[in-house]
């Protein structure tokens, strides 16, 4: 047997065919249509308002929005920022959070009571603290550069913010891992034991491969929540889409631009997060264990 083959005991429930409702789940464009209509009506309302109080020729709203779109999406030239930064931060924070979260989650089911307790405490602490407070904590208490030997490694604000956002993700991934391991029927552990698997072997080759499927939907859910929390980094002074939108609004000095600009920002996030939400629901249905 090659090393890559998992000795996997089949789960008690047969795989569920969840073909019905898939198409419906993935292709319901109602919400997208809704969002677009809402956005369009906001622009029209803003335009009407602008014309009512127009004092001289001004470029149209759509034109102005279009002018700022590249800035909001990819940030200023030769600089990394905007919505792309939001996405990058969400990827990186998710990666860090998942890596630490898995370790913490496995610690929570450790057979050593002190390890279990410490991991539980850490998880609960970061799970129950507000994101923004954690973000401030990391931003203000981690130095802007660290010195190792003679070399100074700079820690830019966005990196610290990423780390701050990854802390609550870590705690929640830890809970996901614990929940998934606990949801595996104990028969799996017992049969593995009867086949002379050690604890680590059982965990690595039998339990965890079965957990992955169960963990993916909640994990994706947390990814969406994290992405929607990334605008928080604008509060601590990172050049993300939110900050740039406010800069653009400050530069334009036009009150009728407020609604469309914020609506556009909402739309960016919606277009990114909504498909993820639909996909999560789809996977949840497919991986659901029917008893």
């Amino acid at each position, binding site marked *: 047997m090659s090393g890559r083959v998992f000795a996997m005991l089949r789960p008690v429930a047969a795989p569920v065919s969840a073909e019905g409702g898939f198409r419906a789940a993935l292709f319901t464009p109602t919400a997208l249509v809704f969002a677009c209509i809402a956005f369009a009506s906001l622009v029209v309302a803003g335009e009407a308002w602008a014309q009512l109080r127009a004092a001289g020729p001004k470029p149209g709203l759509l034109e102005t929005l279009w002018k700022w779109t590249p800035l909001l999406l990819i940030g200023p030239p030769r600089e990394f920022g905007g919505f792309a930064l939001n996405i990058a931060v969400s990827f990186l924070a998710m990666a860090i959070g998942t890596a630490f979260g898995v370790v913490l989650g496995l610690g929570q089911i450790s057979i050593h009571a002190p390890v279990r307790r410490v991991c539980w405490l850490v998880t609960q602490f970061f799970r129950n*603290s507000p994101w*923004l407070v954690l973000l401030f904590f990391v931003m203000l208490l981690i130095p802007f550069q660290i010195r190792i030997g003679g070399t100074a490694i700079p820690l830019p604000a966005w990196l610290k913010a990423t780390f701050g956002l990854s802390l609550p993700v870590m705690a929640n991934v830890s809970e996901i891992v614990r929940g998934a391991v606990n949801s595996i029927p104990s028969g799996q552990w017992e049969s593995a034991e009867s086949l002379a698997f050690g604890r680590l072997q059982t965990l690595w080759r039998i339990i965890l491969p079965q957990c992955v499927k169960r963990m993916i939907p909640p994990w994706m859910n947390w990814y969406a929540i994290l992405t*929607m*929390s990334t605008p*928080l980094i604008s509060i601590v002074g990172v050049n993300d889409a939110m900050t740039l939108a406010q800069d653009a609004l400050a530069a334009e000095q036009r009150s009728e631009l407020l609604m469309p600009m914020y609506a556009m*920002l909402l739309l960016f996030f919606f277009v990114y*997060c909504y498909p993820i939400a639909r996909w999560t629901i789809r996977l949840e249905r497919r991986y659901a264990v029917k008893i």
Partner: protein
Amino acid sequence: MEAVWDFLRHVHDAYGVNLVHFYDGFERGRMLRGMWTTLQLATLCILLSVVIGIVGAWVQGSRSRLLRAVVQGYIQFFRNTPPLVQMYFFYFALGPMMPRVENEYGIPQPILGSFEWAMLSLSFFAGAFNVEIFRSGVEAVQKATVEAAESLGFSRWQIYREVVLPLAVRVCLPALNNNLVNLAKTTTQAYAIAVPETLFVASQIWSDRINVFEMMVTLLTFYLLLVGAFVWLMGRLERALRVPGFGK
């Protein structure tokens, strides 16, 4: 009490642990007012979002397709956009369009202040999740129960209020707790529109007194206590509302 403050003053002088927000009367007052604002904001948001959830779940069961689509659109929009941007949208974009009223000094001011906007936007955000949560509870109520109520001549609203909702609430209480805890934590976002809640006040104090670390620890402790108290209360509620014959 004075002895405790004196002790903390001594700790500051002797060890440099600056707990000025406890022993200084002015800072203590600020801090307490901030905590009070957080409590008010959290309580009002929780109540309003639960009302939104209950009404929304009822509308989702209505016969009108349009109404259902509107609620669905509301849920999807608020669930899939960042709460912070929602709050900015409410406060900066919708706020200026609201009518103005004159205050007692004869100065026009917006009819809704930052506290009210924070309350509204957070409630709508959490309300979107609550609708889904209540709907899942409503769906868990057995058809036969509803049919029995129908055969007794209950109207649709009566069935919802008297039969379905009391059962649904009990089913979805754990999920609801989760969301409401999250809401209580999200009230920190009101910082962004300068609502003088705990985080905002804390940031003012740590800028004035340069005691970031002590302030942070106080903040985290406060929120952990707040969440802990809320979880404990809801746990009691859950036990009090338990339906005999379900669960352990």
